[in-house]
């Protein structure tokens, strides 16, 4: 009985881990191309989830239209956010920019509470079955869907950065902004693209988590989990973000298992990832996949 619980938790951990990985990837995308640590990443989830919820529940749109519409909204939101708030800050000290993202985080969280109220709102059931039985394990349908979509997103990220013109331009900008400009790349446009993609993909995670747990400001705490994930993976590594996300997801659920079985401290799973963060920072400050610069001797 106990081992089946452990299995269930490991599966949960992997599924939530891929979601963390996707959010962490979005975070890394912004950090890598614009050097901004975005503390408002969690709020992207929140805004995305509320938007989708509003479209489905209030505007009565069918989910399969509301979902892409949310994406489109977040795309425009990301571009506008970069253009209006962050573009004027280019060239300012990095700490000012980071403080602005902290401000944005508080602002959006309060605004969402103001518009939609402080209570969690459930999504109507989108899928006919709430959960699916796979080999004796219960997996919630939205999570299963998210797993599939996350994998698609990861593959398309990999493709985007390796083969697409804009992806190469983003990597070049991350490496050296002056060189990028000398190649005719508009750094402003790269920045806007980074924020847009990040906002869009985070919203996906927001919608999925919202469908399972209901939409509430707790979602932005979900976004906070990206910090252990990206620190474990290394701040500027996309692969690291995914691995970090999986590790954090697993640690969380294993912590819950140990806690429930032996320790009985309660709520260990929410703090465990942050313990890992501290330990990783002590032994590997650049994370598992952080950049090692090529040194030619």
């Amino acid at each position: 009985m106990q081992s089946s619980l452990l299995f269930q938790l490991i599966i949960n951990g992997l599924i939530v881990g891929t979601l963390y990985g996707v959010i962490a990837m979005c975070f890394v995308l912004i950090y890598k191309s614009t050097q901004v640590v975005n503390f408002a990443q969690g709020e992207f989830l929140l805004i995305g989830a509320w938007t989708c919820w509003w479209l489905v529940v209030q505007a009565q749109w069918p989910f399969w239209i509301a979902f892409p519409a949310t994406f489109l909204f977040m795309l425009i939101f990301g571009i506008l956010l970069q253009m209006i708030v962050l573009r004027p800050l280019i060239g300012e000290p990095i700490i000012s920019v980071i403080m602005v993202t902290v401000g944005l985080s508080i602002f959006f969280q309060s605004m969402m509470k103001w518009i939609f109220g402080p209570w969690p709102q459930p999504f109507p059931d989108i899928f006919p079955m709430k959960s699916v039985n796979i080999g004796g394990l219960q997996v919630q349908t939205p999570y299963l869907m998210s797993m599939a979509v996350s994998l698609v997103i990861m593959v398309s990220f990999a493709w985007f950065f390796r083969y697409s013109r804009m992806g190469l331009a983003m990597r070049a900008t991350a490496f050296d902004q002056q060189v990028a400009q000398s190649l005719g790349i508009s750094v402003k446009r790269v920045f806007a693209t980074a924020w847009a993609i990040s906002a869009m993909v985070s919203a996906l995670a927001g919608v999925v988590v919202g469908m399972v747990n209901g939409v509430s400001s707790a979602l932005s705490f979900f976004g906070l989990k990206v910090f252990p994930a990206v620190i474990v993976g290394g701040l500027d590594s996309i692969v690291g973000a995914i691995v970090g996300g999986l590790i954090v997801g697993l640690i969380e659920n294993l912590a819950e298992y140990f806690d429930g079985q032996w320790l009985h401290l309660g709520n260990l799973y929410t703090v465990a990832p942050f313990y890992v963060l501290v330990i990783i920072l002590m032994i590997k400050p650049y994370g598992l996949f952080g950049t090692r610069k090529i040194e030619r001797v």
Partner: protein
Amino acid sequence: MGEPASQNATAESILSVNNIEVVYDDVILVLRGVSLEVPAGKVVTLLGPNGAGKSTTLKAISGLLATENGAVTRGSITFLGENIANRPPEDIVRRGIFQVMEGRRIIEDMTITENLRLGAFTRKDGERAIRRDIDMVFSYFPRLQERTGLSGYLSGGEQQMLAIGRAIMARPKMILLDEPSMGLSPLLVKEVFTIIEQLCQDLAITILLVEQNARMALKVASYGYVMESGKIVLDGTRDDLVNNEDVKEFYLGGDKERKSFKNLKSYKRRKRWL
């Protein structure tokens, strides 16, 4: 000196820099009235000691000055009849001027092909044309084709070739080359310069070349300018410069009678330019 650019001013000049003044951080005056003309299809070189303002002149043309908080505060830069001073760099690349920056500056964590593709960023003539040009670059630099892996592991000479190849990928009308010989062995310098000369001929690319290695530069250039502390102090055709006593002494060296180190210590510039 009077009008430094007058001798080279012709109707066919593709780029003309007219008496520009460049200021960094709103206070530091770096260029004080620089004028030069580059005729289409030719190699023109800009010589001078460290800190004379050669690189700044190139950055003023390519617009990269803005990335270092500098600006052209007076004068104009005319490329194909239009003033491009203080335009954003991406606009200038689209107009056909591509700068190969000092120190090669390739994207080290990308492969050679990815670097070349980035060079073609502003082009809109499709994947097939880009692929054809990648092959063309490899035909100029066969040793790049043999190398695999990240370009950060290339040797200095190979990186310089990649930087030039990346510039070709943009299919520019004009390339601004900043010290291509820096840190290369004499043999590689020769190779790189041969290719520069070829490029100019085969693809009809105009080149403005900044060099410390005046001897090599004057081999490929048809016209040269000499800069010192933010001003053009001398200009002339290749033959004028090569035979100029001051240029010989300050830039080309290799006098007939060898100077002993004893004399070198007290060696002072005999004559001021102005």
